[in-house]
């Protein structure tokens, strides 16, 4: 007899409960450390830079989390932090946690500091993380799209040799295709003229007139005279038709010759462009004011805008618009991470939402630091929340000299194209020195007013960066300055006496073709002094460039001019000659017709 096996092992409930209790105990003991490591890892991966959290404490009974000592490293400068926060407290809404959604009702952030030095350089981010890739792409984009003229200036007292290749010059291609057009116009003219068969007509008409001149009209009789008059009238009509066709041909040929003149002008324009190209190959510096501004402050401006583009792209990567499922890398673990797919749904909470947060700085004596800010609507799925994320902050930080800050930001990733924008104005901030790597001097702007505006809407860019300093100082590297070129030392003479500095850079266009315009109050002064210095050298360079181009394209262009001139002459000579011949034949025929009519035949008037 077989015994029936029981389905449940009820006596195992107690060990299972003990196991669960052990798990809870482990959670109580290690949850904070686990959550801190997880938060560090997630934020580092998200921002593409090292994020450190000194402490994290989960207050389960209050549904709150306290974070202490948050430091976010600058992804482009590992030796400094972009942001440090002394303390952060989150108030969690516990209900959405059931659905693994983190809805923070409130956030309090204190002890906020920006751009602080790190004790140890930040670890490089995982190069395979999306943020690192975005940073790499943005850096490559900036290098590719923004190239500023160098103000190295070099030595302008000697010009390097210039060797050009025919395929580099637009004139060669333009001349080649234009020569074909000239041949085609000439061929068409010859062919059309031949098709008119003017010589045959003139010969037969002349022969008729000659024959009639030897005939007595009275000997023809009435019928013969009438018949002969008909022949003459027909011949005259043919001559008139030929003259009309010749006039049409003349008109068409004149039009073609006009287009050939335009073609010659185009070839000439190509040659002018080749002169400019050849001049650029000489490496001669441009001393136009806009180039001076771009050369001095272009890189500095690009760095600011590049940061804006980077953070906007990170936001667009991690906060996708719309309600479509979207893929993100799975969690880091011993097993393969795989891909985690989000499935947002209308009227549900987003996966992450910070409804409201306050920022504050609590450094120094009360009243010295009055910096406050608010953030709202920061979410991973803005289409579900339906409102843009905003940041507004303003105040004054009393360091050695007071610094005023106004900051506003918005991120709207729903509706039409996603928009990320920031508007910042800082007054009285001591900026770090601006180094010009190619020049033997450095600029210390001192206490400055800085304004920065940046917006990326879809792929459209709009931004401006302004710097105003009233007490800027310039310092030279004396060793380098001694060996500096005439131009470099001239620039130094101009700038070293200036204390006021005003720089403005404007960004526009699209990601694919951005535009940047940089200007400063130094531009005109430097440009004027430099132009006076190097006028003679510039003229020499221009002459050299022209000679190099002319040696390659001069004979071709001259041959074209001769060809077009020859065609002009041919048309100008041949058409009047043919027309004169036809006129002569017509008159001769008309004379004979009158003679026949005078012989007794009444003919209709011509």
């Amino acid at each position, binding site marked *: 007899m077989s015994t029936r*096996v*029981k*389905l*449940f*092992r*009820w006596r*195992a*409930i107690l*060990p*299972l409960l003990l*196991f669960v209790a052990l798990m809870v105990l482990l959670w109580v003991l290690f949850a904070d450390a686990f959550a801190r490591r997880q938060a560090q890892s997630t934020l580092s991966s998200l921002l593409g830079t090292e994020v450190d959290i000194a402490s994290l404490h989960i207050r389960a009974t209050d549904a709150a989390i306290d974070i202490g000592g948050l430091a976010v490293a600058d992804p482009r400068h590992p030796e400094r932090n972009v942001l440090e926060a002394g303390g952060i407290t989150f108030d969690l809404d516990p209900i959405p946690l*059931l*659905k*693994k959604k983190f809805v923070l009702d409130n956030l309090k952030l204190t002890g906020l500091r920006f751009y602080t030095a790190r004790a140890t350089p930040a670890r490089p981010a995982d190069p395979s993380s999306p943020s690192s890739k975005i940073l790499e792409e943005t850096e490559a984009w900036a290098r590719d799209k923004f190239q500023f003229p160098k103000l190295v200036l070099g030595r302008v007292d000697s010009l390097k040799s210039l060797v050009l290749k025919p395929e580099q010059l637009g004139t060669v291609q333009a001349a080649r295709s234009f020569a074909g057009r000239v041949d085609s116009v000439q061929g068409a003219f010859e062919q059309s003229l031949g098709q008119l068969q003017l010589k045959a007509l003139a010969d037969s008409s002349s022969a008729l007139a000659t024959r009639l001149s030897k005939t007595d009209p009275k000997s023809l009789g009435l019928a013969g005279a009438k018949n002969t008059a008909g022949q003459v009238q027909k011949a005259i009509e043919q001559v008139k038709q030929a003259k009309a066709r010749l006039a049409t041909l003349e008109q068409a040929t004149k039009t073609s010759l006009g287009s050939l003149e335009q073609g010659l002008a185009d070839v000439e324009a190509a040659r002018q462009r080749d002169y400019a190209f050849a001049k650029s190959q000489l490496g001669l510096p441009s001393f136009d004011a806009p180039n001076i501004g771009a050369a001095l402050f272009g890189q500095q401006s690009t760095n600011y805008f590049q940061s804006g583009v980077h953070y906007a792209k990170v936001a667009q990567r991690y906060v996708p618009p719309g309600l479509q*499922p979207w*893929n993100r890398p*799975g*969690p880091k*673990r011993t*097993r*393969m*991470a*795989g*891909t*985690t*797919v*989000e*499935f*947002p*749904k209308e009227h*549900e909470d987003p996966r992450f939402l910070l409804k409201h947060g306050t920022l504050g700085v609590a450094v120094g004596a009360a009243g010295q630091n009055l910096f406050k800010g608010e953030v709202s609507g920061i979410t991973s799925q803005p289409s579900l929340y339906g409102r843009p994320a905003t940041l507004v902050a303003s105040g004054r930080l009393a360091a050695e000299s007071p610094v005023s800050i106004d900051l506003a930001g918005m991120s709207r990733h729903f509706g039409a194209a996603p928009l990320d924008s920031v508007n910042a104005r800082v007054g009285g901030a001591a900026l770090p020195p601006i180094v010009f790597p190619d020049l033997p001097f450095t600029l210390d702007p001192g206490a400055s007013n800085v304004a920065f505006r940046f917006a990326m809407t879809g792929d459209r860019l709009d931004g401006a960066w302004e710097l105003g300093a009233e007490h800027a100082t310039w310092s030279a590297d004396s060793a380098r300055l001694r060996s500096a070129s005439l131009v470099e030392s001239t620039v130094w003479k101009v700038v070293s006496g200036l204390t006021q500095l005003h720089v403005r850079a404007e960004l526009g266009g699209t990601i694919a073709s951005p535009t940047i315009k940089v200007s400063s109050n130094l531009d005109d002064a430097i440009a004027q002094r430099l132009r006076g210095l190097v006028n003679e050298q510039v003229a020499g360079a221009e002459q050299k460039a022209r000679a190099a181009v002319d040696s390659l394209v001069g004979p071709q262009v001259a041959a074209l001019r001769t060809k077009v001139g020859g065609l002009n002459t041919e048309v100008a000579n041949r058409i009047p000659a043919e027309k004169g011949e036809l006129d002569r034949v017509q008159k001769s025929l008309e004379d004979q017709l009158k003679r026949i009519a005078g012989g007794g035949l009444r003919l209709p008037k011509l």
Partner: protein
Amino acid sequence: MLAILKLLQSIFQTLHSEGTPGQVAAGIAIGAGIGLTPLMNAHNLVLFAALVLLNVSFGGGMLGLALFTPLGFLFDPLFDKIGLGLLNAPVLRSLWTAWYNAPLVPYTNFNNSVTLGSFVVWLATVVPLYFLTRRAVLVYRERYAERVVNSKLLRAIKASKLYNIYAWFVPQ
């Protein structure tokens, strides 16, 4: 080496335990689920609770876990492809969306390609695995169990110094 000895001992003890072949096979099948799928997911708590509460071989479960964990690592790229295919299938989108927004279900991490892929593969193979294992245990016990117990190899292993070292760490 000690890990291999431990595995061999686990296999041996399981095969020679008093559990029926069905209990051993069910334990192995449940353990395979824990081993094949990434560990830190809510569904593994359910599987572990089932292993403890159901009258199946716990040793079989541990054996299944030990045998199928390496297979899980090995087949992760396949699980990733299967899981991603299922998650991105338009016909299943409404199901995933409902689960994603349901209480507790998201803690299973079903929306991760490796987790879903490995779980689906386990589901598809669990019944054949159960019957195959049960048959294998039956055949073993009928034909080989006694011979293995009396084999020279087993006796040699038990007499070896390495086994003695291992035995120090085995609770009695």
